[in-house]
């Protein structure tokens, strides 16, 4: 194709939409649209409806209050180790020589 022919062809292609007609929407467009809207809106209502139930709101409220109470109670508690626990921990530490922090250095021969 010569350069001139090619330019003409391109111009011709660019003008190919000049005399086009508007494409009408498919038949029964409104009927299908209405059906879709009814479907979407009823689905939306169904999805949100459970949020508005009093039972759901009550359960959420109780859960929030319980969680708050738990956090407050836990926060006010101080660590309480009874004597038995302390003794056990100390005996295990002694058994494995964990009390002496310098043990490692003792193993290194002095120059």
């Amino acid at each position, binding site marked *: *194709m010569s350069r001139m022919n*090619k330019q003409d*062809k*391109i111009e*011709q*292609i*660019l003008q*190919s*939409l*000049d*005399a*086009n*007609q*508007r*494409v*009408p*929407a*498919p038949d029964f*467009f*409104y009927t*299908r*649209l209405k059906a*879709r*809207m009814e479907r*979407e809106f009823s689905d939306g209502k169904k999805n949100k409806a459970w949020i508005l139930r009093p039972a759901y709101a009550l359960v959420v409220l109780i859960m929030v209050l319980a969680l708050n109470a738990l956090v407050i109670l836990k926060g006010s508690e101080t660590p309480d180790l009874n004597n038995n626990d302390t003794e056990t921990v100390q005996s295990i530490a002694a058994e494995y020589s964990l009390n002496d922090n310098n043990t490692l250095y003792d193993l290194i021969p002095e120059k």
Partner: protein
Amino acid sequence: MNELELIQRLRNGDEAAFKFLVENYQDRVFNTAIGIVQNAEDAEDVAQEVFIQVFRSIHAFKAESKLSTWIYRITTTRALDHLRNRKSKKRFGLLQRLFGDGNETLYEVPDFNHPGVTLDRKENAALLFKAIKQLPENQKIAFTLHKLEDLSYQEISEVMKTSVAAVESMMHRAKQNLKKALAESLEKKTKGEK
């Protein structure tokens, strides 16, 4: 029914007014959508989404622009969203093929035949639509609204919320890009025939 009355009735949830609106605008919306998404089924989907959005957000419409301008704006936005979704699905499909067992079928998208184009221009129009697909989004919108909906540059500027000069520039660049893409396409075609 004048436009303000129509808007008021739509705001009141008047179904007859909504039906009137759809029947008056459905062809414009569908024609714009089909020009952008280049597929009749997708265009119907987009057109439905447009009217659902109009129904939902008519209360937010301030009537600063014409109703038609607002509807064109929603249509172009929705159509571009549709294209973006299609692209991301395509990318995901490509990944699936890469990591899948290779049994997935690869569908070639056929050339788009615009139903409103006369028979003698169909071949050329298919080439043009293929080139339009490659345009940047704003050029694609400006070119489609001008060529398919016959909107003036002034009207396009209102739809795209920009100046007339910007639309002129977009159209100029769109034509340049189309010429380039068409030249390449013709080159390939000639090589293929040899």
